[in-house]
């Protein structure tokens, strides 16, 4: 939102009213319901007991929840460490003009348009040692690869799947950022005899700050909330190896139908994402200013 002398006009609220109403229906009312769940022990719709913050205490001390929290955090950290540099590198290598451009864009965007459970299905097939190309090649190379039995293999499969699925988002963002750099900058660099690396380090990278902020935020949120893809491929297993927070949450909420703990869990989960995003956002927009 550019702040250059915009007129003040409170009637603009009428224009945002439809958005507020629609978001209130889709987000606020359900969220209030969850708050309601989280402070009660619900035996049946007519038999509820107020328990205050009891469920919050239970959930935050639950070893299974804590383990899933650490696991999810580790997963998000690995996702960011791999996808952000890889995405920027691919964007730099991507063709900038010529007939290759539209094809490159379509190919890169394609994984983003595949339903998430189909992404899971694709990798479920691809990584299988007996009928999948990926698993078969690994076995041929002498790796005893089986994501259904070995925890490390399962983790690697889910991570590689996420890198395959979401690096394109970083590529597109970084590519858009690179395209917005005026040619004059490059010409200046060339006159100075700058190497490819220093052109990248001192011209391209600083201009990518904005899009990379968006990329890091989106990738953090979505990887921290990941559910469908690992659920299809590993179902959270083997054991608990890929049981991320959202998988555990839906097990408690839908599987065991424990509304109270699930509500408390949901709200704490939501809060953690907001806090981490806020910290990322503040750090990324403050530094280097």
């Amino acid at each position, binding site marked *: 939102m550019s702040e250059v002398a915009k007129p003040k006009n409170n009637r603009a609220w009428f224009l945002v009213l439809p958005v507020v109403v629609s*978001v209130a229906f889709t987000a606020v009312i359900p969220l209030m319901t*969850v708050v309601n769940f989280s402070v009660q022990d619900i035996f049946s719709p007519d038999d509820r007991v107020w328990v205050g913050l009891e469920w919050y205490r239970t959930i935050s001390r639950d070893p299974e929840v804590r383990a899933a929290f650490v696991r999810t955090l580790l997963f998000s950290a690995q996702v960011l460490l791999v996808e952000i540099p890889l995405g920027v590198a691919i964007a730099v290598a991507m063709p900038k003009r010529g007939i290759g451009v539209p094809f490159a864009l379509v190919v890169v965007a394609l994984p983003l348009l595949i339903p998430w459970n189909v992404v899971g299905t694709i990798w479920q097939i691809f990584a299988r040692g007996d*009928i999948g190309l990926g698993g078969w090649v690994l076995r041929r190379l002498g790796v005893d690869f089986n994501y259904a039995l070995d925890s490390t293999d399962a983790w690697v499969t889910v991570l590689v799947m996420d890198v395959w699925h979401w690096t394109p988002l970083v590529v597109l963002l970084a590519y858009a950022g690179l395209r917005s750099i005026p040619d004059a900058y490059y010409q200046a660099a060339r006159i100075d005899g700058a190497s490819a690396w220093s052109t990248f380090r001192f011209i391209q990278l600083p201009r990518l700050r904005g899009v990379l902020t968006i990329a890091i935020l989106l990738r953090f949120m979505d990887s921290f909330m990941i559910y469908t893809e690992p659920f299809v491929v590993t179902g959270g297993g083997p054991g608990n190896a890929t049981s991320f927070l959202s998988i555990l949450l839906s097990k408690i909420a839908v599987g065991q139908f424990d509304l109270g703990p699930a509500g408390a869990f949901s709200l704490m989960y939501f809060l953690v994402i907001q806090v981490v995003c806020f910290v990322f956002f503040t750090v990324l927009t403050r530094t280097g200013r």
Partner: protein
Amino acid sequence: MAVLTSRADERTRERVDVVPAGPVRRLPWAPVVFWLYAATLMLPILWMFLMSIRPNEDILGGFELIPDHVTFANYRTFFTDGTWSDSYRNSITYTSMNAVMSLVVAVPAAYAFSRFRFAGDKHLFFWLLTNRMAPPAVFLLPFFQIYSSVGLFDTHLGVAIAHMLFNVPLAVWILEGFMSGIPREIDETAAIDGYSLPRFFWKIFLPMIRSGIGVTLFFCFMFSWVELLIARTITSVNAKPIAAQMTRTVSAAGVDWGLLAAAGTLTILPGAVVIWFVRGYIAKGFALGRV
């Protein structure tokens, strides 16, 4: 003095001309790296496609790089068995409805954010974005209860409304970026020329942000199309998404891999078609939004 300057200009121009054209000093291996990456991206999709044109006995019979027997039986099953083609149509229906509805409520709001200051505007803008940070699993139970109680359970409209949860904030965000790129003088000139706000909006402003609208529709379509968790929770038969249908391929005889792969391949098609139409704007849409 003038002569001196112009000579200096000429010299600069000559020096610039010596530098080869093109925005970046091309790294010789860059195209190789990129197209290798592109091929890697396509590999798992291609593998699924190959599986979809093989009979099930062959799929489970053993590993083969090139299919021995090519069959389109899986696709035939998909289109002749009503539940599959119905669910495919369901997904397309609610996804299109959602894209249009999200756009309709987001356009006025984005205009308000890009043109006016009003009480609480910044807080509202950020609050809208925080809704994208809610794990869908959080909303499953209340969604099920609320949509059942208001009669939206298992309807296309219900799913379209539910998906507005994450698409409306996104649409406002993208559109605001596009609208802020249009100078406010345009609005003022139109007002002086006697255009009322609705007429100005319809006749002048919307055509100017045409590409922004295209990009917004694309992203709304995309996020609604790929979402499964919410769509599956609030539907059972009449509005069942294709993605949910796919989770039910396990029968007594085991997983029907061929049919699953065929359905998977078909779910990629609408996305591929849509991308082709907005290919020039995909990258732009992301870059213009602001956090």
